[in-house]
Every structure is written in C-alpha cells, then in structure tokens.
C-alpha cells in the first residue's frame, strides 16, 4: 500500500461517514423516514472490499448497505434521492434506505430479510459457473444471519458446487440488541464456514488495509476456480441498530473502547500525510450536491403506483 491508496481509502471511508451523519440530520428533519441503519464504525469493510472487486463482479448486501453502495460507486446523488423516496433514486424511490439497487454496478440490493440474500448470491455464482463467466459474487451479511437456516443451506451449496462466491460476514457482535454470545453455541463464525470445507478466516474489520488485502487474495483464488471463500470481519457499529434503538443492551464503555479502533483514525495514524482537510471540503460539497439533488427530485405519480410488478409494466 502507498499514500495514494491510503488517500483513496480515507476519502471513501470519510464519504460514508459524513453521508450517514447527514442522513441522521435529515432523519430528524423527517426528510428520511422508515428504517435507517447506519454503518458508521464499519466503513473499512465496505471500502476495502469494493476496492478489490472488478466492475463485472456482483454484490448482494443487507439493509445496512449505504456504505457498500457508496463504496461500490453508486452515485451519492442517486442514493440520497432513494432515501427521499424520489424517482431519481437508484431504485426509483421504491426501496428506500434498505433496498438500494443498481444494475450498472451490479448491486443487487439491499435485502432486509436476514440471510435472505445468501441463496441469491449462490444462484448468481451458479449462473456464472454454468455460463463460463469468470466473475465473483460477493455476499455481505451480519453475525445475526449465521443462526438462520439459509446461511447453512447456502454455504453447503456453494461449497458442494464449488461456486465463485465470497461470503463476507460483518461480525459487529450484535444482532439488534442481542449479543452473539447469547445466541450461538460457537461464537467463532469462521469455524462454522470451515466445517463446510470453505476456506475461511477471521480478519480485523477495522483495518481497511487488512480487509482489502484479504479480499484481493480471495478474489484471485476464486477467479482461479478455488471458491467459495469466507471472511469473518471483526467490527463494531458505533451507532444504534436503527433510529428506533435506545441501546439498552450495551455499555457506553464498550462503545468507547471500540471507538479507539475507529477505522478512519487507525488509517490516519498509519498514514500521517493523508490530506484530511482537503477531503472534508470535497466531501461536504458532494453531500450538499446530493441533498440538493434529492430535494429537487420528483415524487412518482400515484397513477404509476401499481407499476413494476410485472416486466411488461416497467417504464422505459
């Protein structure tokens, strides 16, 4: 890694951080409604991961996906417009915060059913294998997904069929308000993946460099036909689960302890020459622009309410 890359990583993580902080502000102004799940604290995973992917790879994510969508390169304007429920949003406003989709960057959502995206990623990888396409499908999910049957079914299928899937588990220690230790008999998630004969590893999810390195290696292995692979990234969300969470289940001291490992601070400590001020200004402009774009966006006509249910009703 060199300073140029460190700068790029920092800039992308900062974009996610500031974008989401703006979202919180807009939420309290009631511009954004519904569920809003913040990624703050976990930025290193999205940024390190997306850096190592190619445009032809596919991404399946969860409802906590703003960071991944931004890091994947979906236009912040389109993401903000989606938060506003506007037609200019990346899902035409139909999805909102939890359902960001973008065909151009092969971003397949935005799924709010815990573990529901794993089977889809397996199927996408199956189609790549069948059609002899050398692409990787990445599937991102939380530690909560590990308890679901779909997690186990999907890992088994991916391993059984040698599919080009990269499983990315963001272990932030909590599923809503329930700590992993209260729900799993084995809290080392990578061991579960290993039991399906999937190469798996725990990685520091606060260290963007480590994340990016791990994914780079995995992706080249997968492209050689040595998939699937599994990473458990150890991380922590600094904010509440959603805007409705009073955070009664964890100690303030624990949160503060993790904040010392803030991925932005960590990277800056290592690369002192990162030009933070320059990025702050640049990003403030990008976010302002996104908010203006969303504000000026259009609300879909009620006449079109029942569209997009079947393909023949999709507007051109």
């Amino acid at each position, binding site marked *: 890694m060199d300073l140029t890359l460190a700068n790029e990583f920092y800039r992308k993580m900062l974009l996610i951080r500031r974008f989401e902080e703006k979202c919180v502000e807009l939420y309290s102004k009631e511009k954004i409604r519904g569920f809003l799940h913040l990624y703050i604290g976990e930025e290193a995973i999205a940024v390190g991961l997306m850096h190592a992917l190619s445009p032809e790879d596919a991404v399946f994510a969860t409802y906590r996906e703003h960071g991944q969508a931004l890091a994947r390169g979906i236009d912040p304007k389109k993401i903000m417009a989606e938060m506003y429920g506007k037609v200019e949003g990346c*899902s035409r406003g139909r999805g909102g915060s939890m359902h960001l989709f973008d065909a151009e960057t092969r971003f397949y959502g935005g799924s709010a059913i815990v573990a*529901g995206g794993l089977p889809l990623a397996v*199927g996408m990888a199956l189609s790549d294998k069948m059609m002899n396409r050398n692409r990787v499908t990445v599937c991102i999910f939380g530690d909560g997904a590990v308890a679901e049957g779909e997690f186990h079914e999907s890992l088994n*299928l991916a391993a059984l069929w040698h599919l080009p899937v990269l499983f990315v588990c963001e272990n932030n220690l909590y599923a809503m308000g329930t700590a992993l230790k209260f729900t799993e008999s084995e809290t080392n998630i990578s061991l579960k993946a290993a039991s399906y004969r999937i190469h798996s590893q725990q990685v520091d999810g606060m260290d963007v460099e480590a994340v990016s390195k791990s994914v780079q290696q995995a992706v080249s292995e997968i492209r050689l036909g040595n998939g699937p692979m599994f990473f458990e990234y150890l991380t922590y969300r600094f904010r509440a689960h959603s805007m409705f969470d009073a955070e009664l289940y964890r100690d303030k001291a624990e949160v503060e302890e993790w904040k010392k490992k803030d991925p932005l601070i960590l990277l800056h400590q290592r690369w002192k020459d990162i030009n933070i001020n320059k990025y702050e200004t640049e990003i403030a402009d990008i976010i302002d622009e996104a908010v203006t774009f969303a504000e000026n966006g259009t609300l879909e006509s009620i006449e079109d309410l029942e569209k997009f249910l079947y393909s023949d009703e999709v507007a051109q």
Partner: protein
Amino acid sequence: MSSIMTYREAVRLGLREAMEKDERVFLMGEDVGHYGGSYAVSMGFLEDFGPQRIIDTPLSESAFTGAGIGAALGGMRPIVELMTVNFSLLALDQIMNNAATLLHMSGGQFNVPLVIRMATGGGKQLAAQHSHSLEGWYAHIPGLKVLTPATIQDAHNMIGLALADPDPVLIFESAMLYNSKGVLDTQALPLPIGKARIQRAGKDLTILTYGSSLFKALEAAKTLIPEGIDAEVIDLRSLRPLDDETIMKSVAKTHRVLIVDEGWKSGSISAEIMARINEQAFFELDAPMARLCTAEIPLPYPKHLEDAALPHADKIVAMAKKLMEKS
C-alpha cells in the same frame, strides 16, 4: 400432430423440449436426477442432459429456490422443482420476499425469469403434510403468476409458457392427474397465461374450477344432462392473473355460479372469485353463488375421511341441482 399420453409424460415432454430448445434452461430440485423425480417426471433426464443441467439438490428448499432466483438474475432460465406444495413452505421466504418483490423493489431494474414447479392436492391418502392445495395462497401474492394445468395440453404447454415469461411463474401440477391420459396436439397454438378455457359450453349454470377438480366437474356435468341441467364448465388455468372477462361473460350467460376449489373455503381463491363476480356481475345473478371446497381440516389419512373431505362429482351434482332450484 396429436398423440395420447399421460399428464406425467406431457410435463416431461414439455420439459424436454424446453431443455433442448434453450441451453439456459436447467432443472434443479430434490431427487430430480438419480431418482428420476419424486413423481417420475424427469425420469431419464440425468442420462440425457447430464448433471450440469439436471441438478440433485440437498434438502434445502429455501437455498435452492433462492439459488434459482439468483441464477435467473444471472441470465439462466432455471426450473426449480419443489416436490410437494407443503414443502414449498420452507422456500416461502425466497418466493415471497425475493422472487415476487425484486422487480418492484428495484424500481424495474431486476426481473426474475424463474419457473417453480410442484405437485399439489389430495386424494392419495398421504395425510396432513402431503395433501394440501395451497395454490390459492400463492395467488394472493402480487409479482407472481400461478398456473394450474389440468389438461394434457396444458401440462405440456405451460412449461414453455412459463419459461417464456420474464417474471416468476409457479406451476402447480395435480398429483392426482399424473397418471391421467389425454390428447396432446403439438401443433396447437398454446392458450396464453391468464386465459381461462370453456371446457364444456352450457347455458344453465357456470361451474368454475381448476386442476384435478376440472374432471370432477366435467363428470358432474355429464350426470346433470339427463336431469335437464346444461352446465358450463370453465377451467380457470391461471389463478393469478384470473381471467375476469371469461368468468363474467359466462355469468352473464348462465346467471348461476358454482365454484369448485380444492383449497379450504376461508380466505380462498373461491372467495376471491365470488367477490369479483359480486363486484362486476352482481345484477346478472339469479341465485346466490355456491362453492364446494375441501373440508376445513388438515387432510386425514383414512380413505373414507379423505374422500369425505375433498370435492367429488356427486357433491357437485347435488350442489348444482340445489342451485337450479333457487331463483
């Protein structure tokens, strides 16, 4: 060209033709390969098409149905077989939360050209976890299409129709019909999805039905002739979309309606059809509508109890006669 074959053979031929025509088509499910399909539909396919296209899956309904959705997103044309409707409930999350929602939720970006087949219905003494008719449930879900082939022609044609559709289509094959025989006309133009078919024209009352109940209704119609009752029997073919036009036209002709539905009465497709007739053709009715459904119990094992629970021709006859008395 027409030939006589069983319903099973018709589905098999439909699948075979689809596999031969388009190499993106593949079949995936429990026991579809080495076993030959739990209802022997895909017998011989593994040898003919190989394990790449005839995929025996583990008992993971949710994951392989979801994998079908993912593969469809990736440009393949998967056919997922779910053995029996009761087992499809383990895949309900994928069917409801992903297959049915993705196009809408993504603002029209991602359609899911997936076909899901499963067997439905009672009558084989398979008791309370293998005998139900839940197609009406699935018809509740916007974003899906729900087909219920009854005839040999449809058993064959609906495979191709479903595969040609850009969106998720569920095909409910009647377990009781696999051995039934009939004529397949390979030259006939397939009747599109969403069109009902008048299987027997009549003027006195309309019997609306689908799946294996169609043949019970046709048998009843025959019995009713000497009684001076001329019943029109309509095969709905598709429960979503429903063919309102054909239904209302028939109601306007006969002014009397009997619905035969192997699902349970409460919250059923028969209830939906009645509501639509009420909304669209109320003043055409000369008598209150009637319906014959399965008794509201988990289907019991003993033959006499199962028989008593399911719709039968004699019950249809009795209800039709009663309906003709009212005016």
